[in-house]
């Protein structure tokens, strides 16, 4: 395996990770802006869900986030075509997890305390072990 191929694989993996982090943070920011969806229900029963669905689909942050997630899906397919699943899957899952935690602290100003950091690290280690 050449250095150029390794660079190509890791560039694709990092691209997938950046798209996932951007998408998830935008969706989270959009949903935080809307608040609890139950408040947007117009009436009881199934028809009452039209209000929340309409509000979510009219939210620009959510829509750009969903677009990022759609691009992420296709970037993931591309990455799986050039990298082995046993490398790509745990690398993408772990890096996305850590990146999301950092981004949630920096951009969403979430209170990432010691237990949430510990959870992120345990999940990363767990994902790597599951891929063995």
């Amino acid at each position, binding site marked *: 395996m050449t250095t150029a191929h390794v660079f190509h694989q890791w560039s694709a993996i990092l691209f997938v990770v950046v798209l996932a982090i951007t998408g998830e943070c935008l969706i989270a920011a959009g949903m935080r802006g*809307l*608040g609890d969806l139950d408040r947007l229900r117009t009436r009881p029963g199934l028809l009452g869900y039209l209000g929340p669905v309409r509000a979510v689909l009219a939210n620009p942050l959510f829509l750009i986030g969903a677009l990022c997630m759609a691009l992420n899906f296709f970037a993931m397919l591309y990455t799986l075509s050039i990298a082995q699943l046993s490398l790509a899957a745990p690398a993408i899952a772990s890096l996305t997890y850590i990146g999301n935690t950092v981004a*949630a602290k920096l951009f969403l100003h*979430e209170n990432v305390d010691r237990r*949430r950091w510990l*959870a992120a690290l345990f*999940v990363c*280690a767990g994902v790597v072990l*599951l891929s063995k």
Partner: protein
Amino acid sequence: MKHTLTPRRYFILLAVMLTASVGDTLLSRGMSQVGPVDLHHLGLLLHALTNINVIAGILLLIGFFASYTTALSWADLTFVMPATAFGYVVIALLSRFWLHEYLSPYRWAGIVLIVCAVGFVANGPSRTEHPSNHPDLDLMDSGVGR
């Protein structure tokens, strides 16, 4: 004000965990019945849409996205993330007990770590408190006046 989870919210987090993992497992089972799809036989993708496992998998993944989005409307991203990670555990257990695959000691160790991670986060508050511009809404959210 402390954000606590109602039984309805626990149900949505449970839906996030189960729909993603069971949906992926059904898609995987369905696609193994359909056979490998390559660029010269893209029509097989349309044929895959008639497979009952693929249809059920797609419906469950739509349910996952809806429940995940709903959870983000009242909980932090760093709170909801371990719920999705728990899906890896459900997939591993489904592959062990439903598809009868072998789980190595490494995988069991991975399962234990992810279960611990979910436990850490589940014991904490679901939402970071920020100074609010809508104190009246926060009052409603705390349940006062209901």
